[in-house]
C-alpha cells in the first residue's frame, strides 16, 4: 500500500516506512540511542530528498526523546541546570546549523557534507566506544579487578576554566564554558544531520564533563528534546522541508520497535551491549565511507534549484 508524502512529494510503501521506523526503533531501544544516525541515511537511500529526510528526522526524534525524557523525569534522573546550559548552547548551534544547511543546499554540496560528517563522526565515536568496551570486556573476563580507575582525578584544562558553577544533581563544580560549547557543537551538527546527537553527547558528558552515569541519559534526552523541537520549527519555517505524514508514520513504527528493543536490551549484559553499539556505529561509518570512495553508478546528479 502506497502512501503519498505531501512535502517529500513522492509516494512510498507505508509498510516499508513502518518497518524502517520499527527496525531503527528496535535498535535504539536496545542500545538507548535515538537512532537518527541510522534513519537519515536510510531515508535518503529509499528516495526521500536529503533536505526532507534531515528535517523530518528531527521531528521524529522529538517524539522518541519526549517519551524517554518523561520516563527519566519521573525517576528524577535529569540534571535540569546542566540540561538548560546545554540547551542554551544547543539553541544557538541549531540556528547556525539550519542556516549552514540552507547554504550548502544551494551550493549542491549538502549530500557530500552529510556523508563526510557522518563518516568522520561515526568512525571516531565508534572507534572510541569499541576500544572502551573491549577493555571493559577484557577486564570482566580476565578478572583484573584490582586496577582502580582514576584513584585521584588529574587537574585538567577543563578544571582551570573560569565561570565555575555548582551542579547539585550531578555533584559537579565546573565552568559553564564546556557545557555551552558542547551544546553548541552538537546542536549545529544535529540541525545539519537530522540527528539528536545523543551518541556524541553521551560520551562527551561522561568523559569530558565527568557526569555520573545515572543522570547522563536523562539530561541528554532533555536537551535533545528541546534542540530538535527548535530545529524542526526552524526547518519548517525556513525551508518548508518537514513532512508531517512521514514523521508520524516513522513515529508509530518507532514507538512499537523501541518497546520491544528496550525489553530485549534489559536482558543483555551492558558490556556486550556497548560493544554491539560500537560495532553498529562503526559499520554504518564504514559503509558510508565506502560509498564516498567507490565509483558512483551515475557520474551526474540533478539538483533541483527552482522552488516549486
Amino acid at each position, binding site marked *: 500500500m*502506497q502512501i503519498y508524502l505531501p*512535502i517529500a512529494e*513522492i509516494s512510498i510503501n507505508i509498510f516499508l516506512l513502518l518497518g524502517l521506523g520499527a527496525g531503527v526503533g528496535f535498535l535504539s531501544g536496545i542500545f538507548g540511542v535515538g537512532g537518527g544516525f541510522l534513519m537519515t541515511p536510510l531515508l535518503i537511500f529509499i528516495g526521500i530528498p536529503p533536505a526532507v529526510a534531515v528535517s523530518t528526522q528531527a521531528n521524529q526524534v522529538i517524539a522518541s526523546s519526549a517519551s524517554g525524557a518523561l520516563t527519566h523525569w519521573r525517576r528524577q534522573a535529569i540534571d535540569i541546570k546542566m540540561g538548560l546550559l546545554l540547551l542554551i548552547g544547543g539553541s544557538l548551534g541549531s540556528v547556525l546549523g539550519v542556516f549552514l544547511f540552507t547554504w550548502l543546499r544551494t551550493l549542491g554540496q549538502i549530500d557530500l557534507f552529510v556523508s563526510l560528517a557522518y563518516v568522520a563522526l561515526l568512525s571516531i565515536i565508534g572507534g572510541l566506544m569499541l576500544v572502551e568496551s573491549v577493555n571493559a570486556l577484557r577486564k570482566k573476563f580476565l578478572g583484573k579487578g584490582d586496577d582502580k580507575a582514576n584513584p585521584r582525578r588529574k587537574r585538567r584544562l577543563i578544571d582551570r576554566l573560569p565561570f565555575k558553577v555548582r551542579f547539585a544533581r550531578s555533584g559537579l563544580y565546573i565552568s559553564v564554558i564546556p557545557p555551552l560549547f558542547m551544546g553548541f557543537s552538537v546542536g549545529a551538527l544535529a540541525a545539519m544531520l537530522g540527528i539528536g546527537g545523543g551518541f556524541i553527547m553521551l560520551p562527551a558528558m561522561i568523559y569530558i564533563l565527568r557526569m555520573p552515569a545515572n543522570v547522563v541519559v536523562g539530561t541528554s534526552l532533555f536537551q535533545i528534546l528541546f534542540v530538535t523541537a527548535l530545529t524542526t520549527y526552524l526547518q519548517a519555517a525556513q525551508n518548508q522541508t518537514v513532512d508531517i505524514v512521514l514523521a508520524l508514520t516513522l513515529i508509530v513504527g518507532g514507538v512499537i520497535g*523501541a518497546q520491544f528493543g528496550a525489553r530485549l536490551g534489559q536482558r543483555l549484559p551492558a558490556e556486550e551491549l556497548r560493544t554491539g553499539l560500537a560495532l553498529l556505529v562503526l559499520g554504518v561509518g564504514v559503509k558510508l565511507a565506502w560509498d564516498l570512495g567507490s565509483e558512483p553508478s551515475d557520474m*551526474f546528479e540533478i539538483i*533541483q534549484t527552482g522552488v*516549486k
Partner: protein
Amino acid sequence: MMRALLLTSLLILISTLNSALAAPPDELEREADIVAALSQTTVEIRSNFAGADLILFGAIAGFQDGDDVAVVVRGPASDLRVMRKERSFGIWINRAPVRFEEVSGYYAVASTRPLKDMGTFSALRRNQIGRDHVRLNAPETQRRETRFGVRDVLVSDLGSEIVDYREALGRIKGRAGLYVETPGGVTILEGGLFQARLRLPPATPVGDYVADVYLFRAGQPIASRQIYLDVRKAGLERAIYDHAHNHPHLYGLICVLLAVFAGWAAAEIFRRR
C-alpha cells in the same frame, strides 16, 4: 464499462469531426485533422497515490495507411542544475554545475513506431519530439556569436560536453519514470481511431500538463492537436502542503506539538503495562 464509455466518446468525437470537416468545403483543404481526449483531465494526488495510468484516445479524419501518430506529454517546467561527479582525494564530489532553464518535470513520448522511422531528424527536432530532441537551455554556458559570417550562432562554452549533461538529465529523470519514450505506445484501432497509454509515476510533479498529438505522413507532421491535463494535490495532502507553505511558522509549531504528544502518549501507554 470503461470500454463502452470510450467507444461512445469516440463515436461522438467522430461525428463532430465529420461535421466540422464537412462544413467548409471551399476553404483551404486540410489533409487531415485530429480530435483527441484524455480519460481524465484532472489527476488528483491523494494519500494513496501510486502513480496513474491515463488513456489518450482520439480519431483522425483523413487517415491513410502508413500514417503514424506520436503523442508528446510535457509536465510543468522548472530550473535545475546538473552536476558532474569528479574524484578528488579519493572521494567523489559534485563539480561543474550547469544550470538548465525551464526543464519539463515530466516528458513522455508514445508513438506507433520508433520515432526515427516515422519522422525526419529536423521535423522531430523542430517539434521537440523524442528524448534526444528536447530543447535544454543552459543560458550561462551559451552565447550568441557571429561565426563564418553567420550571425546569432548559438555557441556552448562546454563544447561537446554539453551532450553528456543532456544525456544525464534524460537518464536520471528516466530512472524515476519521468522521461519516457515508448515506441509502440500508440495503437491505431481502425478507421483512424487511435489510443495511447500514459503512465504517470509516483514522483509525478504537480502542475499543468500539455499533451500534443502529431500525425506524421512521409516523415513530416501534417496535423497536430493540443489538449491539457491538470495534476494536483487533493484532499488532506493538499491541505498539508498548502499549510506548510502558507503558514510555515504555525505548521512548524504543529509538527513539534504533534511529535511531543505522540512521545507522551507512547510513554503513558507503555507505562501502564
